[in-house]
């Protein structure tokens, strides 16, 4: 494995070089790019490091490394383990690796730097948070990832700050308060995205009555450069909110998106509007708590990273009334038949394929099987066909359930097999839509607007499945079923492997070509975070986050019983494997 300097530069000149390299590598996308000098986050396959949340800007969650492969994966053994402590709601994050150092965060935004070959701690940084605020939060205290760039590690906090830490020393470089979390209750749980000389991060939102901004921050100084409101962020968008509903519209962009260096475009997915359910039912265009399409909620948006200005968008679900948001952060960028495409999964269970140049819909295909909130989605236009709006009162068997046909964890695209690996979730729910009023004082509260109960789909049990499909057409090559939906991100590699960290605690490796299970290891607790691979001191490693207790995972005890009823929700570790 070729050792190389990472893409972590300290000067403006080097940043320009990085961009130039990024652009040139984009043009040779099919080349693979493993171990190439000057490889960057824009390299399609990331080489031996893993330097941004989705692996590279292309969101492939793929590594070209081949030392661990389908022929020898049976010899995979634990190399080292690191326990961060205080893993409330489990470790939900994805580690990063650069130049032999593994960086990761966990609950309460605690950040660790470890020797990537041995796990030896190099430094740690535990920010002091507003404990009273954390105790009052629902979507807390987990942190799902960090960003690296310009010699710093960047992490968001649930009390609304973005912090930069010196990558070598672990000392804080700057600490910028971006969200008034004391008032709005929410802050940051998603990973930031480093682009050129800026750090981009999206606030929580969804069923929280705010306007869910996405921020651009100067990586050198920590100064806020721009703020884009995912709720009524433009004059056009303001017209899609009746009355003053835009003031409490929700939205947000709580997972890191992707970046297209060729067009200098950041792609980001946004959360659902608030209240989550709408008692107006089919009359939503003119009445109810938020009349109109509610732009830019449940949308994919393309932003200029330098200005925060909107370039274009597509609203995947106009007037989302089901919590099937677009906040899933993966934007899988591909070239196919001369077309530059981006593939984006929507929580409702459909996968949208867009033209990268203008955001026009190229195709839509269905991944989850149990879907009845719409009869379909027009594959040519993306328009919803046969909406099932939910007026005040009781409704039975809405599919998928609020937990979605897909969750926020990422799939993986493997350029060698040409397949996109993604988890589908099969479950439904009964609900009663109830009229509510947003609570804003003294501190904003969840605005759900319904009581609900998860249930099995009619005629079958709830379950999950790993699909291997063509990312553009959706054609299925193979499928593996799981008794409960896996909730962790996936990894595929140049060694013809797909790794699935499952909810019972088994880490499983499959043949990427045919789905045959080749290896498994019991990590002793469910997985609900990330998985990566990297090279350190000439050896390939696999690192996975363990720990259970996300808000989706919390449903498993009532729905599936053991082992989830008794699974700890305050534990988690980074477990690292290599060949014996």
């Amino acid at each position, binding site marked *: 494995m070729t050792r190389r300097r990472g893409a972590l530069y300290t000067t403006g000149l080097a940043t320009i070089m990085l961009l130039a390299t990024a652009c040139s590598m984009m043009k040779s996308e099919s080349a693979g790019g493993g171990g190439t000098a000057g490889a960057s986050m824009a390299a399609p396959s990331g080489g031996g490091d893993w330097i941004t949340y989705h692996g590279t800007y292309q969101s492939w969650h793929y590594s070209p490394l081949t030392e661990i492969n389908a022929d020898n994966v049976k010899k995979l053994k634990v190399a080292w383990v690191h326990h961060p402590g205080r893993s*409330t*709601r489990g470790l939900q994050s994805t580690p990063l690796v650069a130049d032999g150092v593994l960086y990761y965060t966990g609950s309460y935004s605690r950040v660790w730097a470890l020797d990537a070959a041995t796990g030896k701690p190099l430094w740690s940084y535990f920010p002091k948070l507003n404990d*009273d605020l954390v*105790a*009052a*939060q*629902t979507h807390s*205290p987990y942190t799902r990832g960090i960003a690296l760039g310009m010699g710093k590690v960047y992490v968001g906090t649930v009390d609304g700050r973005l912090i930069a830490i010196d990558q070598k020393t672990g000392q804080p470089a700057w600490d910028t308060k971006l969200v008034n979390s004391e008032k709005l209750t929410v802050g940051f749980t998603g990973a930031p995205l480093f682009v050129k000389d800026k750090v981009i991060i999206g606030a929580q939102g969804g*069923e929280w009555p705010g306007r869910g901004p996405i921020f651009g921050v100067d990586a050198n100084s920590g100064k806020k450069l721009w703020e884009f409101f995912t709720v009524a962020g433009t004059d056009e968008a303001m017209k899609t909110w009746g009355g003053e509903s835009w003031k409490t519209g929700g939205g947000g962009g709580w997972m890191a998106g992707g970046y297209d260096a060729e067009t200098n475009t950041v792609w980001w997915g946004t959360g659902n509007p608030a*209240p989550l359910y709408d*008692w107006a039912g089919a009359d939503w265009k003119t009445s109810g708590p938020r009349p109109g399409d509610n732009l830019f909620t449940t949308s994919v948006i393309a932003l200029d990273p330098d200005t925060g200005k909107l370039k274009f968008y597509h609203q995947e679900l106009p007037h989302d009334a089901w919590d099937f948001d677009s906040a899933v952060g993966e934007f899988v960028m591909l070239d196919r038949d001369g077309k530059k495409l981006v593939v984006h999964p929507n929580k409702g269970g459909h996968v949208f394929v867009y033209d990268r140049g203008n955001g026009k819909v190229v195709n839509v295909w269905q991944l989850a099987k149990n879907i009845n909130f719409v009869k379909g989605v027009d594959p040519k236009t993306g328009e919803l066909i046969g909406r099932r709006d939910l007026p*005040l*009162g*009781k409704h039975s068997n809405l599919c998928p359930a609020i937990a979605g046909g897909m969750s926020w964890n990422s799939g993986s695209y493997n350029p060698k097999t040409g397949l996109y690996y993604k988890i589908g979730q099969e479950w439904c729910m*009964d609900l*009663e839509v*109830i*009229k*509510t*009023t*947003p*609570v804003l004082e*003294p*501190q904003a*509260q*969840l*605005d*759900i*607007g*319904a*009581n*609900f*109960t*998860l249930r099995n789909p009619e005629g079958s049990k709830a379950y999950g499945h790993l699909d291997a499909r063509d990312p553009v057409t959706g054609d299925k090559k193979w499928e593996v079923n799981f008794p409960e939906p896996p909730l962790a991100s996936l990894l595929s590699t140049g060694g013809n492997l797909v790794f699935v960290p499952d909810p019972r605690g088994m880490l499983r490796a499959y043949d990427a070509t045919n789905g045959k299970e080749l290896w498994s290891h019991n990590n002793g607790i469910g997985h609900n975070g990330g998985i990566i691979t990297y090279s350190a001191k000439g050896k390939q490693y696999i690192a996975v986050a363990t720990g259970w*207790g996300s*808000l989706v995972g*919390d*449903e498993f*005890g*009532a729905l599936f019983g053991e082992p989830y009823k008794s699974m700890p*929700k*305050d534990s988690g570790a980074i477990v690292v494997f290599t060949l014996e």
Partner: protein
Amino acid sequence: MTTVVSAQEPRQGESGTAAPGAADPAEGARIFASTCGFCHQDGGRVAGRGPKLAGTERSDEFMLNRIRTGKDGAMPAYGRAFSDAQVRSLLAYIRSLKDDAR
């Protein structure tokens, strides 16, 4: 199962049916559907993310304290968000739930 809130009922803060500061189960139902039902499923009638609340044998003191102070890593603290009357209304709503032993 009874429907505890209808479209005709007054909105939060506009209640004319209960004296100021008194526990009002209808007000509790509205707050519950806004904030608590996210975890306590079917309006607290069955277990979900959070435990089933219908028929709970916990004391009033325990319930009021749990709503106000929460449970670390599992339930938010609502002592600052909701007034004493709102917290008592939530308890009144929970006590009004029929336990049909599901």
